[in-house]
């Protein structure tokens, strides 16, 4: 009976493809499918605009791997991602733990910690560059002069922005742990620390997985904050004439290769972009299988 009814619903809807699905399909072809496929093809070409492309095989990829700036950006981005991942998640969990201890007025704190997420990356970058320069100017320097200032500056900025976000996910996770589980542990004589490590954390693993992977992809994809805070400075001139921008991350490196001085490097830039896509997509796929496995266990 229900299948009869379903076809009664389905068939008239199916006919309305032009109304329901066509508009978004057209936009999707323009805004994603075509640029994606064309971009993939162009990574095997030499070109300055999309119409003068000549197929040259994988040499763009070879050049990308030989590019000192790209290799540096990859190392720098990985280091940044690992450090920010650890700091953001530990601090976010700590705050989430405090905010679920039934202290009065915690809603205000939640509001305050989450607020930076609504401010855009460019604006965030300039807010913090003003603050860092205000501090560093007392020591006769500024954030653009040393790589470590730029690195830690970005870490502080991203902690300020992301801790509130991850905290919200951890709070939701902690609140979904059944009350009686913690009650039972207390009756059995577990200390606060034991409850935290033996009950709360293991039951929080789904939230932890989500937050870790979010931090990973956010870290690798970071662009706006990087551009606005240091824009890659300070620069380091190599013996062979290439300029390594010491605080330049992957996304910014790809952007600079595309729109930099040499328009012949666009093929290499597109090859870098494909490698970047493979990296980000791989992280997402691992996440997907990791969360699936967790669901089966529960």
């Amino acid at each position: 009976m229900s299948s009869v009814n379903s076809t009664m619903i389905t068939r008239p809807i199916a006919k309305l493809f032009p109304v329901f699905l066509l508009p978004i399909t057209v936009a999707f072809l323009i805004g994603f499918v075509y640029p994606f496929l064309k971009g993939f093809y162009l990574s095997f070409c030499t070109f300055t605009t999309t119409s003068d492309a000549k197929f040259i095989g994988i040499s763009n990829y070879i050049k990308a791997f030989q590019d000192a700036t790209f290799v540096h950006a990859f190392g720098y981005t990985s280091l940044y991602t690992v450090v920010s991942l650890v700091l953001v998640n530990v601090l976010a969990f700590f705050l989430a733990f405090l905010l679920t201890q039934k202290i009065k007025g915690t809603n205000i704190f939640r509001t305050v910690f989450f607020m930076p997420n609504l401010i855009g990356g460019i604006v965030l970058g300039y807010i913090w560059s003003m603050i860092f320069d205000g501090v560093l100017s007392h020591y006769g320097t500024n954030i653009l002069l040393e790589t470590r200032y730029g690195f830690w500056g970005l870490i502080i900025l991203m902690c300020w922005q992301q801790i509130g976000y991850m905290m919200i996910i951890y709070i939701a996770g902690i609140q979904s742990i059944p009350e009686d589980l913690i009650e039972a542990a207390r009756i059995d004589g577990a200390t606060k620390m034991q409850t935290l490590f033996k009950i709360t954390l293991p039951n929080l693993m789904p939230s932890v997985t989500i937050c870790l992977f979010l931090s990973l992809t956010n870290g690798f994809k970071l662009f706006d904050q990087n551009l606005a805070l240091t824009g890659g400075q300070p620069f380091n001139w190599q013996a062979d004439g290439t300029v390594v921008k010491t605080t330049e991350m992957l996304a910014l490196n790809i952007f600079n290769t595309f729109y930099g001085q040499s328009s012949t490097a666009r093929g290499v830039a597109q090859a870098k972009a494909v490698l970047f896509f493979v990296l980000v997509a791989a992280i997402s796929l691992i996440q997907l299988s990791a969360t699936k496995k967790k669901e089966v266990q529960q």
Partner: protein
Amino acid sequence: MKNKKKCTGMISGLIVLIIASVAWVLPILLVFMNSFKKNTFVKTATFAWPSGENAAGFDNYIKGVTFGNYPFGKSVMYSVTITILATLLILLFSSMAAWYITRVNNKFCKAMYYIFVFSMVVPFQMVMFTLAKTADTLKLNTPLTIPIIYLGFGAGLAVFMFVGFIKGLPLEIEEAAAIDGCNPIQTFFLVVLPMLKPTMISVGILEIMWIWNDYLLPYLVLDRTKYMTIPIHIQYLQGSYGTVDLGAIMALITLSIIPVIIFYLTCQKHIIKGVAAGAVKG
């Protein structure tokens, strides 16, 4: 005795939270303070209260909105237009598409759904060059047409979230509507759409936050000589003017975050819920 211990734990927790939230508010307060200071004092006396010789009154605001050769008001107008249009477009068409995909559910629909989901993991850098060129060729490089690009590139997450919600809706309601003589268009707009409200709010908030703050897509797609959005405007002033007026920049940043903070404080419950939903599903 146990109560006393619990009490001191609570108080130390509260103290940590208060110190942390002061640290969280301070950067915003500093922007606000420095927007009332003369340019040279922003760097040398960043942490001083604007008073006496460093105070500039509202000079920075007046200078800021008329800076360079592009009035700030225009950027605000374009940001508002693009955000509203693109969000409405995404909400309407992705909910329609999601309903069609879930209800028809044939091979084509399944394939479309997987391509939509796939597009969520593709970083913007992968498509940015070709997307900008395509938009240029098709004349989609104005504030009134760029929403189509946003609809295309942002469709993935929206369709994914709507499909997830529609799968849980009981079919009986729509069957009843069909028996009562609704055609599918009436069923969707009169019966299904009202039920989608919670997801509409979540998706809408995610899209507003993304599009309002987005820098790179409009920077590459829009005709930059004619149109700027707020992030592009701020980056343009800071990036291309060597001796930039920091006081004026702080005034513009203040102007651009005040509406965001008001928006946040008025619907923070929905915002936090929406963002959490997007994170968990994405």
